[in-house]
């Protein structure tokens, strides 16, 4: 499935209105805000239809799934929204991650659990707000992809250390940027290591750079560390490094709609996360020009991307960082 799915769920006491735009959305937040009530309304509607007294407006089916036979239930559903409540421990399993991968459904997960195996976007983590008329509000907000900056006036952020999630092309690019600025650039070798190695750089100005499209499992802990850091930690989360290149206009820009409105193109059956979608798009748009050809395995970044002029063009999309 692809595209933005609008959902309204109503009864005489509650009205929920929200949109889903990726394969995985997480609903989290404080207790007592109505997350489980939403799940129960959908579950009642699934069992009793309109005679439940609940109205659901959505152009696809919205289905509540729970219990030990979850896998069988999901296998019988396609092109729908599936909602799962927090009491189901299976959402933390590798088996569930495999099920979500290449699935035509969108998943709305009510959970606070650490979900390392699911590529949740930092932009698709919401909490319920409102009394009778409820909506979803994003938990982590950004200013030009700088997340939860305590004060916009503190931007741009000048780092002493850059920690990148990956060890390949993204790290090669930011190492090239850091060289000459007396900035140390290190790779965490994976998103789940970022928060672990932060303590090695206490009291230094650290910029974290990771793929926002799949950093959802880590963001809570990183932002909590940021809160305790007295302004020493900044978090830059572009959708992915490939998105940053595409958005800069450095390569063929005829595909701008695919960059600006990925929700209309990134089919959940093909892409586990938008990070993979943007990699495919960059590989595709650079395939005709040898010197720009972006390697699918990201192992070695072509010299073109770390040329001074290219770096300058990409940096223009990083207004929150002083490099």
């Amino acid at each position, binding site marked *: 499935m692809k595209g933005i799915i609008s959902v309204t769920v109503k009864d005489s006491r509650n009205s929920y209105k929200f949109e889903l735009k990726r394969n995985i959305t997480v609903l989290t937040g404080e*207790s*007592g805000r109505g997350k489980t009530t939403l799940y129960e309304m959908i579950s009642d509607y699934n069992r009793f239809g309109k005679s439940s007294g609940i109205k659901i407006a959505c152009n696809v089916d919205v289905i509540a799934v729970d219990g030990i036979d979850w896998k069988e239930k999901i296998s019988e559903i396609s092109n729908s929204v599936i909602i799962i409540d927090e009491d*189901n421990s299976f959402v933390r399993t590798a088996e569930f991650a495999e099920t979500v991968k290449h699935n035509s459904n969108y998943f709305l997960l009510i959970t606070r659990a650490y979900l390392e195996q699911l590529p949740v976007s930092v932009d698709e983590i919401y909490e319920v707000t409102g009394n009778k008329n409820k909506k979803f509000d994003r938990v982590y907000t950004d200013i030009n992809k700088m997340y939860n900056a305590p004060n916009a006036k503190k931007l741009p952020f000048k780092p002493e250390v850059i920690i990148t999630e990956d060890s390949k092309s993204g790290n090669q690019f930011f190492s090239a940027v850091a060289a000459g600025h007396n900035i140390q650039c290190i790779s965490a070798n994976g998103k789940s290591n970022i928060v672990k190695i932060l303590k090695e750089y206490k009291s230094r100005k650290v910029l974290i750079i990771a793929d926002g499209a799949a950093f959802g499992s880590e963001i809570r802990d990183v932002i909590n560390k940021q809160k305790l850091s007295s302004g020493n930690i900044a978090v830059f989360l572009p959708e992915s490094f490939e998105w940053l290149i595409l958005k800069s206009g450095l390569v063929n820009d005829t595909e701008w709609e695919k960059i600006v409105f990925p929700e209309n193109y990134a089919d959940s059956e093909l892409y586990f996360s938008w990070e993979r979608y943007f990699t495919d798009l960059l590989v595709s748009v650079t395939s005709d020009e040898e010197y720009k050809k972006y390697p699918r395995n990201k192992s070695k970044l072509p010299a073109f991307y770390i040329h001074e002029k290219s770096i300058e063009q990409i940096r223009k999309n990083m207004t929150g960082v002083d490099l």
Partner: protein
Amino acid sequence: MLRVYFGDRENSVYNTSVFFRHSYKDSWITEDFTREIVADIDKSQVISSSSIVSPVLGNISPLQLSGGVKALVLMKHYPGKIFNASNCGDNCARWILKLAEEQNFTVCLYHIMDFGSGEFDIRIMNDRKLIVHNMDEFIDAGVKYLREVQS
């Protein structure tokens, strides 16, 4: 003292709502602790053991209380059992710490709950010798053990 296991623990109760449904007693609902947490977390008022007034849902039964309130009530009344505290939002954290001042109990966590900016004592049961005293130390412990459990 509060004791925390990061990750799964044998015989712990993951689905606290189901456990609550089959084990709560009427007398628990009208005691002061429950009245206070229902007012603070669910913004509702306990009228009797079977009736609670919610500003949004109207007159509700104890079974319609939030997952956080149900888990807290269970923690108070079954201190020997291990409940899943990831069913509790951060607005339950101060109540968990308050309860831990009165009795020892253990919870499982599958995320790093925000216990606020104050000092506290929490024993980390993945390493029984470790006691953390603030959020910075708690995050470091959670990061270590939650990620170990996953990998």
